[in-house]
């Protein structure tokens, strides 16, 4: 009887120890992008300045052109779209800003309209400004045009 209890205790102890060791090993391998403990609030992200006046090349054919200036202060809502104040014709000529492509005026039935279509109205859904931030994870992306 005594030996049996001893054996069970030893087995249990070994099992627990192994689980603990296994857990340690897993914990050492897995590194979260978020370094603060689970119970602690997130660390505030670094603040990067928007790249102004930097021309960003397209990385692939269908890529929406990137915005070479800050956009956060431009109002885009039901009432006004301040992007269009410079980038829509005829303003684009006056302000010497790139004109938005005519495809933005085609509605979902394929009919050309005189105003920017609602599907394409929220510029910053596709066109974004860039900051010089370091990638959080390694990235092997290559622009499609290299070597052409």
């Amino acid at each position, binding site marked *: 009887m005594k030996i049996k209890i001893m054996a069970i205790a030893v087995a249990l102890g070994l099992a627990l120890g192994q689980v603990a060791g296994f857990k340690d090993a897993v914990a050492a391998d897995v590194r979260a992008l978020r370094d603060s403990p689970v119970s602690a609030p997130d660390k505030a992200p670094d603040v990067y300045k928007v790249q102004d006046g930097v021309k960003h090349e397209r990385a692939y054919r269908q890529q929406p052109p990137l915005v070479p200036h800050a956009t956060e202060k431009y109002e885009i809502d*039901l*009432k006004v779209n301040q992007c269009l104040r410079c980038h829509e014709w005829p303003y684009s000529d006056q302000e010497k800003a790139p004109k938005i492509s005519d495809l933005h005026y085609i509605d979902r039935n394929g009919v050309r309209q005189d105003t920017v279509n609602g599907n394409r109205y929220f510029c910053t859904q596709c066109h974004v400004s860039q900051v010089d931030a370091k990638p959080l994870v390694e990235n092997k992306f290559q622009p499609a045009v290299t070597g052409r």
Partner: protein
Amino acid sequence: MSNDTDGKQPSLMCQAWELLRKPTGRWSLGAILIVGFATGIIFWGGFNWAMELTNTEAFCLSCHEMEQNVYREYRGTIHDQNRSGVRATCPDCHVPKPWVYKIKRKIQASNEVLHKILGSIDTREKFEAKRLDLAKNVWLAMKETDSRECRNCHTFSAFDLSRQQKRAQIRHDEAVEEGKTCIDCHKGVAHKLPDGAFNAEREMNETWNAVHKKK
């Protein structure tokens, strides 16, 4: 009806006029001068003090029309929060600094008191409906004064273009050359733009140029 019209007694107004007209035999000229001077200082100082009280952010926000619409939009904009903590509050942009123009604006403000009493913009919906007209008033006022209130802080002559961003350098240089004023481009800086803002802007510029632009 009232006491001063019955009998042969002159009216209260006449009595007061007589009192003002009659040279006093009791007080010396010196005493009158000193007392007059002192009360003058107190009244004038008091007047200006009371007027400056109406030139504070707290005064503007005592009306919910201001607090719940324009102020909430202004919160977080560059004139409210920025790296150096220098703020431009309501009166800095909307009340002129020079005395004569300030008094003129304060007299105009009696119209705003009237509309406060009438409740012309006492809900968000009413405010939004009137918003384009209100904005146009401010734009035109700023255009007429060559953005005087902006230039209390932002003067062209003090611009260091080399420390501005490339696009700003080019556009500000053009603006100086063409004699543009701040509000020509910087609309909706501290508040949201109204519906139809760009059409209104174009109309305003067209009428303005028709009258003011020299060929």
